[in-house]
């Protein structure tokens, strides 16, 4: 095992993780999610976030259909979708996605179609951005493991 390479990768991982929190992509609930992972369930976080991203894609698609026709918007369906998305994003620590959902709900409550469309676009952007970032994070984890190292505990404070 090349200890220098491992140390470099671990440092990269740590810095990247901290930056994701500092930039508001993730919050404390993601830390809580990581606590649920162990040698017995080493892929728990990856599995849950993967389900989350699939869920995002589906919900966003359904909501975009509901919002499509200006004269015939099913706000009830949209509200249900936003509720689901807000819940899921909160549960995995996807802070930016959750925050867009809060604004999205407000637009839905007042039946503001334009506002909803903007929020829909934003939530789509945010979940895809997070997906890319977390993929990079997981890749770093894999590199560390392949180099024979262990994933460091990251203290966010």
């Amino acid at each position: 095992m090349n200890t220098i390479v491992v140390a470099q990768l671990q440092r990269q991982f740590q810095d990247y993780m901290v930056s994701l929190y500092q930039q508001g992509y993730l919050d404390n609930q993601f830390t809580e999610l990581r606590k649920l992972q162990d040698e017995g369930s080493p892929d728990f976080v990856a599995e849950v976030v993967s389900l989350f991203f699939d869920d995002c894609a589906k919900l966003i698609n359904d909501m975009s259909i509901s919002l499509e026709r200006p004269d015939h918007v099913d706000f009830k369906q949209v509200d249900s979708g936003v509720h689901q998305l807000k819940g899921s994003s909160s549960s995995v620590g996807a802070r930016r996605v959750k925050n867009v959902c809060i604004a999205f709900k407000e637009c839905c409550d007042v039946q503001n179609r334009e506002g909803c469309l903007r929020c829909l676009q934003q939530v789509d952007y945010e979940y895809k951005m997070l997906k890319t970032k977390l993929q990079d994070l997981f890749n770093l984890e894999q590199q560390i493991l392949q180099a024979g190292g262990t994933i460091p505990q990251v203290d966010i404070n």
Partner: protein
Amino acid sequence: MSASDSCSSSMEEELHVLAVDDNLIDRKLVERILKISSCKVTTAENGLRALEYLGLGGDPQQSDPVTSTNVMKVNLIITDYCMPGMTGFELLKKVKQESSKLKEVPVVILSSENIPTRINKCLASGAQMFMQKPLKLSDVEKLKCHLLNCRI
């Protein structure tokens, strides 16, 4: 039920929890947290499924041996409040209205919203606890201690 239900054996018994939530991610989360906390977990995606599992779903005349043993085995029900169809509150009421042993099963309500009137009505209808989502590992550890201390 048995004479050996002392404090020490209660601590060693595995809690069987029925977790009800319409959101897949939340089900995965609660299941994992409960399993780490050494609980046996059964998940249900809505109130009706939960009642079916507990033997209340179908014909009340039917005494299905499989479902009636489920009632005896469930030590705790954790349910989301906001669910389409039957809400967690309605599920709570159905459980507490039972004349069987089922009404003694503690029911914990989970909600993402901290609304005092909601909390009060759940507690008034017999909910053991009201907890805020998202659930963390430490929440269930606290819950377990609370429940195990309450068991006589």
